[in-house]
């Protein structure tokens, strides 16, 4: 897997300063590894990593989900709509 585009929102967007980041991940990487990778590139988000849920193709997935190239990936902080 060459690299994966990750959508960011709300506080995560503010901390990273971008709406999307591109992360390099090994083949077979999971959501958990994706979060860790984000924390390495942007240490400022580390306190929030455990609260982030991943959405793939607009569906929530668990931390052990294995990412595939071409999927639409987003990291979702705790939601507060309504």
């Amino acid at each position, binding site marked *: 897997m060459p690299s994966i585009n990750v*959508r960011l*929102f*709300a*506080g995560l*967007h*503010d901390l990273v300063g971008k709406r999307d980041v591109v992360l390099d991940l090994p083949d077979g990487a999971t959501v958990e590894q994706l979060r860790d990778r984000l924390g390495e590139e942007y240490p400022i988000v580390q306190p929030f990593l455990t*609260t982030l*849920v991943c*959405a793939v193709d*607009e569906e*929530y*997935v*668990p931390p*052990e*989900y*294995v990412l595939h190239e071409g999927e639409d990936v*987003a990291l*979702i*902080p*705790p*939601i*507060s*709509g*309504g």
Partner: protein
Amino acid sequence: MFAITREPLDPQPLVDAVRKDESGAVALFYGVVRNHNMGRSVQYLEYDAYESMALKKLREVADEVCAKFPVNGIAALHRIGRLQIGETSLLVAVSSPHRKEAFEACHYAVDRIKETVPVWKKEVWEDGSEWIEGHVPEVPERES
């Protein structure tokens, strides 16, 4: 009728969309921006959303409500962007033959929207601001 929009929300088209000739009751919920939260004075709110997914999840909540309650129709709009005190952030309309089911289904829909739809609010106070952390969405048990 479902939307994530930056425009002010208009309830009448929603009510017209959900009411059917067999409906005896329509419950309409307004989420509105209030001037305080947790004891702090709020100046305004800023809403962010994962728009396409939020719209999808709004529709899924509607499907869930229709499967669970005897409703005739359901519609929901969520506004995003900057909202002033008193402005409407969320509208949910549900119609049913009887009032009990209309109230229960509408209440359930609002609860589920808050649990599943990827929208975020930032409170802006006179001396700062903060993204509110509400619900961590549930994920399916195991998948890969």
